[in-house]
């Protein structure tokens, strides 16, 4: 299933916001029939801070250990790529 991260905001910042987003994502995923994998689409997101990314992505990984999490829409945002790389989530 694809998550349009812009729906969580164009500036994704702070651990509490990341934690809240995990809880919301859990509801969406659990109510979905698309159980293949989780795609996080960062198209149109302007800023992704390490705090939000760490809390949100690691939170999802903890809940859905059997699902692969991949990233989309990061090609044109070097800062988002650097944030994900700093957390060891992409190379």
């Amino acid at each position, binding site marked *: 299933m694809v998550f349009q991260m812009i729906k969580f905001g164009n*500036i994704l*910042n702070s*651990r509490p916001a990341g934690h809240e987003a995990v809880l919301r994502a859990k509801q969406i995923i659990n109510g979905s029939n698309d159980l293949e994998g989780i795609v996080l689409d960062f198209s149109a997101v302007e*800023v992704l*801070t*390490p705090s939000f990314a760490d809390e949100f992505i690691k939170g999802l990984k903890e809940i859905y250990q059997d699902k692969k999490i991949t990233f989309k829409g990061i090609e044109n*945002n070097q800062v988002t790529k650097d944030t994900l790389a*700093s957390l060891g989530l992409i190379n």
Partner: protein
Amino acid sequence: MNLDFNNFYKNIDKIVKGSTIDLSKVEFVHPWSMVMICLLLIERKSDSNKKLILPSETETNTYLKRMRFDKILSELGYHEAKEGLDKVQVPGRNNINIHEVMHCYYRDEFNARLGRFITMFKNFGLNESDAQRATALVGELGNNVFDHNLGNWPTTVSGCIIAAQHYPTTHTIEIAVGDPGVGFYGSLKAAFPDVINDIEAIKLGLAGNTGRIGEIRGNGLKLIQRWTLQNFAGIVMIHSGNGLVIVDKSGMKDTKVNKILGTVAQFVINYA
């Protein structure tokens, strides 16, 4: 007196006189000093004889008013100085190289205002990617303020204070974020009982350690350093308690300085 980073420390004894903060000789205030002054004012908020002496130069007061320093003075109860600034006329035209000093009491307030920083950095001349990166840096500094002080503020004044200034001739931007919180030492001492002073605590924080026991955290400050140094050829300064640590391309320097309530962190950006 041009109150930049170095001059602030050289002139601290002329500025701080007990409950009085004397800015009479000040001609220009850099963001670092602006935030420092705010913390000094917060520290003296409850003193019955607290006083702020405004700069004697009208131009400097115009600058302070443009930075909305009068709002801070009003919040903290420095009414006499606030009335002094009320008399100052600010020209209608905005100066896009100045960012008003911003006091966000709560995390939500800070997050809501973070979007303005992208616009500010673009107005300062940064390209889109650099503006996004600089905004992420401000975001992380602000996050630290709230993550480590929530429920533990030493006084009735909480939140972060942010000031920024663009220097177009040198292609430099200074952004300072301060807070009247527990400081690095106060935040880390429970998790690292062997830490004996503020400088050690700042260095522990910069190395990626966190005071939040049992939680895997601590990437924020490491990344702030890396991005500031590698992407902006910049400098990171942190003053917490009586410790000052400066990180630049030549390495890390530390020194013992005047004790403050809380922390001020600044990153300096150089851009082409």
